[in-house]
């Protein structure tokens, strides 16, 4: 192949794309090699075959979309399909627990493969090679950004789902005795959780017609004025329902914080531990727990 004059660049670009399309299989092979070779690849998360399927799909869509007009126009809507496919792969990898490095390597592997092929084809015309590589690089930079954005988005989805799950499983209402409910709170109390706690507690009070509820906060890491206000709201709502609310499990450092913050808990019944609260509940309900006296025969 002779070196081409620079005014024939348009002609050349068609050649680049045609050349890439012609060597699709070669690119795919190189890409797979890159992925398996370069990444600290974790075979547990996804099988080689699956990766190959994903890669082939993305490559097919990309080569189908590429033409001389949109190679430079990165915002073109013709790339929508490519970006959608890329986002899907990226989100699925985020959910599978891939590291950002591995996900980034996925798309940069394709760039390397394409560049290798182009280098082989255009080894005699350095100017054309430079022009082509510049465009390819720009294109893949925008793909990388999409990959990262969707990867992080996928991770955030995982995190928000976990948060929901935690708040759901961490507010159980336990009936410890006939007429006595216990509600161990674990984790930070924010407005949303207080709402859930309050609703669950009040529903349970109606359901079991309990007259005492014990709110155990030994699992709450810190109490500030907002959390204290939430607690007081819950106690007041319980009182409105016609039940008594006891707060137990206040750790010494939390007691210190509460007093230093100037929060007045004097109209709330507080007990040191769940056991004390239970004892108080028994007294209120006029119940008595006795050790069995050995029967004399």
């Amino acid at each position: 192949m002779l070196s081409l004059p620079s005014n024939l660049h348009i002609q050349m670009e068609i050649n680049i794309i045609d050349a890439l399309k012609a060597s699709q299989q070669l690119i795919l092979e190189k890409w797979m090699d890159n992925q398996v070779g370069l990444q600290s690849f974790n075979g547990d998360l996804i099988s080689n075959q699956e990766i190959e399927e994903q890669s082939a799909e993305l490559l097919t869509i990309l080569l189908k979309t590429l033409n001389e007009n949109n190679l430079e126009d990165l915002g073109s809507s013709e790339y929508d399909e490519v970006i959608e496919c890329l986002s899907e792969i990226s989100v699925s990898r985020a959910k599978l627990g891939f590291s950002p490095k591995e996900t980034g390597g996925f798309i940069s592997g394709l760039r390397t493969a394409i560049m290798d092929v182009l280098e082989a084809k255009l080894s005699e015309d350095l100017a054309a090679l430079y022009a082509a590589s510049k465009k390819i690089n720009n294109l893949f930079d925008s793909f990388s950004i999409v990959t990262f954005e969707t990867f992080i988005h996928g991770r955030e989805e995982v995190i928000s789902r976990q948060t929901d799950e935690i708040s759901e499983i961490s507010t159980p209402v336990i009936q410890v005795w006939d007429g006595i409910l216990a509600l161990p709170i674990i984790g930070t109390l924010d407005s949303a959780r207080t709402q859930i706690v309050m609703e669950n507690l009040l529903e349970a009070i109606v359901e079991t017609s309990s007259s005492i509820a014990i709110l155990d906060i030994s699992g709450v890491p810190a109490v500030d004025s907002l959390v204290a206000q939430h607690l007081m709201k819950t106690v007041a709502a319980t009182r409105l329902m016609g039940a008594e609310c006891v707060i137990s499990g206040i750790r010494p450092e939390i007691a210190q914080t509460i007093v230093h913050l100037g929060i007045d808990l004097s109209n709330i019944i507080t007990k040191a531990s769940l056991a004390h609260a239970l004892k108080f509940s028994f007294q209120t309900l006029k119940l008595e727990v006795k050790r069995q006296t050995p029967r004399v025969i």
Partner: protein
Amino acid sequence: MEKIPILRMGPFLLVTIQVDLYDRLALNLESDLIEAISKSGAKGVLIDISVVSIVDSFMGRIIGNIASMSKILDAETVVVGMQPAVAITLIELGLPLTGVHTALNVERGMNLLRSKVNLSDYDAEQEEADTDDYSDN
């Protein structure tokens, strides 16, 4: 015009609210109830709101008012059967109804009233009232 019945049961007055209270009805209830307390010399008022599903700040205030007025007339007020949603709403509105006794259901409400009210006082007054009635006849 709708009216909420006020039932007399021994030393206590019983009010069950079975419709959604609108402002006019609530105001009427307030005046009727206070009238009834002063007339009958009741020692306790039990208000059952177990079917009330909607409250606003006005309703909350009316209940608070009834409790304070009854207190002045020497009668205790117990509100029973409040629904969870209603309780949460009142708290969010900043109306914890201090001064109002609460109970889960009517039975417990009656027990609470009996424990709050010294019934021997009432019996004496009641007999007096009864004899008064007889003397009128």
